């Protein structure tokens, strides 16, 4: 399928030298227009033909094709590059690159693409752009040849390697060359060299390349590959354990975020707040609303939408919390089990309100660019959104700790929750402090909602999924102890992730629950229980 690359340069020369430019342009136009009539099944042949021209104009055309921006005009079958969306599209002539006006969408027929077409486009673009002027284009090209090794492309890769100056691209090309070498019919000596390169490269990808090469390798090569594999597998196992820890931390940070507000309302104030999950949900919906406004009015600010949503979510859910405390909960102090009933009722009301206002379906909350994608750290794959969520959870925790331990406000809160009467007789306005503490807990839950909107559904049911886990974390860590919540969240997260590969996701979760139950038998007041003379009489 990729045999054309071998003849690519030759064809380029021949066409460029032997035919007048006009004919080349007309030929290109025909090829492009042919795309409009092509079927999905024979599309790759057309792409191949286009790539064979070697014409740099082909690059934007193929890119547009891959992105689904290529349309054929229904009246004359002319194919155009398009931009924009909605009922009218702006057309660009593929050959001249000039604007060709606008056309209603109804008069255009999209050139259909599917995965195999996109793959063909990617490969074609890869070879076409290996020698591009643009460093990023070369980088992308190197990645794509690495992903689809083809013996025929080996020469092109070596040519590109010879000309390449950029270290990063070079490294990729080296790997691509080694990977491709293994599937080529080059001599064993060169292949041994390639195995070495791959071994030094390391990581899961090298492992998979080598293990798939093992099956078809010569006897002479086999021992080399096997040796390389042993080393790679060992390091890979270590990295896998590290990766698991990372997943555990990441899950733990989600648990921490979900539970941290509850550590205030439940842990510190003793309110069994079943509406806690709904506070998280309201925070997520605030993010949705902020993004709606940003999308419609200030598209440039999209990357900032989360930063805008954070304080707003805090205010919104804080206000809801304040209203809840003033309206209901303040009548129930000292009757913790009854707060459970009332807040359960409130959670039903909040859920149904959101369902009525925003509809029952999921709402779209986008990831800003700095929260999308992943990067490699040694053998670890770290996704940006998880990293930010861990950082955010820790920051929220630190801020809360600071607020409670180092500020007058925090002192008052602790005073009131420890001894209401005493605090009140010392001039602290206890009702006010109660209300603010509850609002604080709710507000933090709202901020957690902003973060969770990045990884989970934004639907009226969002909160329900977290409420039980949150209670488990707070109880496991020890009610009334923020550090307990922190340690509890991360240890449950990591435990869960280490059980998951052996027991599966479902059984793993059951095991964690059983372990919590057993743990509470051992330490009936949680991990970080306050020891001391029981005040109970």
């Amino acid at each position, binding site marked *: 399928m990729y045999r054309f690359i071998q003849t690519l340069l030759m064809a380029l020369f021949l066409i460029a030298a032997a035919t007048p430019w006009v004919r080349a342009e007309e030929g290109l136009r025909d090829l492009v227009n042919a795309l409009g009539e092509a079927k*999905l099944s024979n599309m790759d042949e057309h792409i191949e033909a286009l790539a064979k021209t070697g014409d740099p104009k082909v690059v934007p055309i193929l890119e547009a094709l891959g992105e689904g921006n290529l349309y054929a005009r229904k009246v004359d079958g002319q194919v155009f590059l398009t931009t924009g969306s909605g009922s009218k599209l702006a057309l660009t002539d593929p050959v001249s690159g000039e604007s060709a006006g606008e056309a209603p969408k109804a008069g255009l027929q999209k050139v259909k693409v599917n995965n195999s077409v*996109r793959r063909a486009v990617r490969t074609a673009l890869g070879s076409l752009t290996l020698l591009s002027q643009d460093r990023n284009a070369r980088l992308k090209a190197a990645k794509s040849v690495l992903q689809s090794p083809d013996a025929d492309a080996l020469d092109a890769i070596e040519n590109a390697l010879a000309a390449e100056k950029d270290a990063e691209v070079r490294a990729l090309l080296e790997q691509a060359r080694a990977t491709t070498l293994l599937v080529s019919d080059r001599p064993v000596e060169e292949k041994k060299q390639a195995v070495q390169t791959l071994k030094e490269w390391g990581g899961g990808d090298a492992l998979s390349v080598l293990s798939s090469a093992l099956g078809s390798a010569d006897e002479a090569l086999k021992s080399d590959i096997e040796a390389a594999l042993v080393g790679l597998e060992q390091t890979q196992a270590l990295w896998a354990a590290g990766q698991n820890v990372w997943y555990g931390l*990441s899950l733990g940070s989600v648990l921490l975020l979900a539970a941290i507000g509850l550590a205030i309302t439940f842990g510190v104030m003793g309110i069994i707040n079943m509406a806690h999950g709904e506070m998280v949900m309201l925070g997520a919906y605030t993010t949705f609303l902020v993004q709606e406004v940003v999308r419609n009015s200030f598209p440039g600010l999209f990357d900032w939408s989360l930063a805008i949503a954070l304080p707003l979510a805090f205010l919104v859910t804080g206000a809801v919390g304040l209203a809840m405390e003033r309206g209901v909960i303040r009548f129930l102090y000292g009757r913790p089990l009854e707060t459970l009933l009332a807040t359960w009722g409130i959670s039903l009301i909040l859920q149904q309100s959101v369902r009525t206002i925003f509809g029952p379906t999921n709402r779209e909350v986008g990831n800003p660019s700095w929260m999308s994608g992943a990067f490699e750290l040694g053998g670890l794959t770290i996704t940006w*959104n998880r990293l930010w969520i861990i950082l955010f959870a820790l920051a929220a925790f630190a801020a809360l700790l600071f607020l409670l331990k180092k500020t007058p406000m925090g002192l008052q809160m602790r005073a009131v929750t420890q001894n209401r009467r005493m605090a009140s007789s010392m001039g602290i306005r206890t009702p006010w402090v109660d209300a603010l503490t509850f609002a604080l807990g709710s507000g933090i839950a709202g901020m957690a909602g902003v973060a969770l909107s990045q*990884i989970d559904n934004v639907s009226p049911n969002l909160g329900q*999924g977290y409420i039980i886990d949150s209670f488990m974390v707070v109880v496991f860590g020890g009610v009334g102890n923020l550090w307990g919540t922190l340690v509890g969240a991360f240890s449950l997260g990591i435990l869960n992730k280490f059980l998951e590969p052996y027991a599966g996701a479902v059984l793993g979760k059951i095991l964690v629950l059983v372990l919590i139950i057993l743990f509470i038998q051992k330490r009936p007041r949680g991990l970080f229980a306050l020891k001391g003379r029981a005040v109970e009489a």
Partner: protein
Amino acid sequence: MTIRARVTGAFLAAVLSTTAFNGAFAAEDTIKVGILHSLSGTMAISETTLKDAMLMLIEEQNKMGGLLGKKLEAVVVDPASDWPLFAEKARELISVDKVAAVFGCWTSVSRKSVLPVFEELNSILFYPVQYEGEESQRNVFYTGAAPNQQAIPAVDYLMENDEVERWVLAGTDYVYPRTTNKILEAYLISKGVKPEDIMINYTPFGHSDWQTIVSDIKKFGSAGKKTAVVSTINGDANVPFYKELANQGVKAEDIPVVAFSVGEEELAGLDTGPLVGHLAAWNYFQSVDNPANAKFIETWKAFTKNDKRVTNDPMEAHYIGFNMWLKAVEKAGTTDTDAVLDAMIGISVPNLSGGYSTMMPNHHITKPVLIGEIQADGQFETVWETPGLVVGDEWSDYLPDSKDLISDWRAPMSCGNFNVATGKCGGKGS
């Protein structure tokens, strides 16, 4: 403003249904249609839309003069995603409200819960959702897809088009994924796929931490053979799953994911940019280009007063089921259950994907199967279509105990589980 409109709309709907409930003073010359979809609880996310779709279909039909000269009247109840409550509400609809037919249920368990009620009280249920098959009941019409109308064509497509050799069957741990995966596993092995090239994974409902599983999929897919994921992951868990796929950089060109429970509604909650090219197999997509569908979408948007509302496959199933029921009632001249049950078989109505769907003797319908790729705008683009219509196969040919069973509700057989090997009705027959 749209919010206010929706609140008033919902309020009006509530008032309407209140009057509907107080059936005592409702006019006698209406035909009542029961709508049994969860409006609260976990399934409200999917089912509320179907309730709205039914209200729209009934309103449209009334504009065209109703049925048998009478107006249709919708009776809406909320079974609240609580399965035993489904049974209670079904009983209430049939014996208190005396509805002529019920359109409802989403999950298999809700259908299982109401089955005995429909059987006992002899009424009709239209069930609009793709399901695991292995059932054919006299009082139920299955307008959603059976596994052979969704799962098997999707796998065929991937095998032919993308030359997939390694398969990940990922599902939520409940009956539909379990059965579908059993069928697919048997099917794949019959196609020469080696057992070690099939990875099966189950997760709990509402699973939200997909890091480990997605990285396992990546690892499974990097063994040098073309790999695809067949996802029977249920509603709620899909958004975090796709978000994790996007973030870990699993591209459709490398490891395509084909899903059977992800439709336009589910995509509405996602940024589909990074997901372009992942697949879904359905019998209908909103993007299908034909006049009937265009009109349907237009009516829907007008009815919901929201031009961002999307349509999806189960809505189309209700559309087909409702029209079939209308036609059957007209043919029978009465809403009497037995007469309608007889009249239903063989009824053929236009579907929204540009053809006709027919009610087969096994109470399943014929449908085209479409494979669509996710687009950046949250729609699907059809990339493949079965050449003709596929008949829903209630008893799968790929499960050892069900391959001998057939269903035919026409007299004289009138049997939901006729065993062709023993020639007796009632499974193996003993």
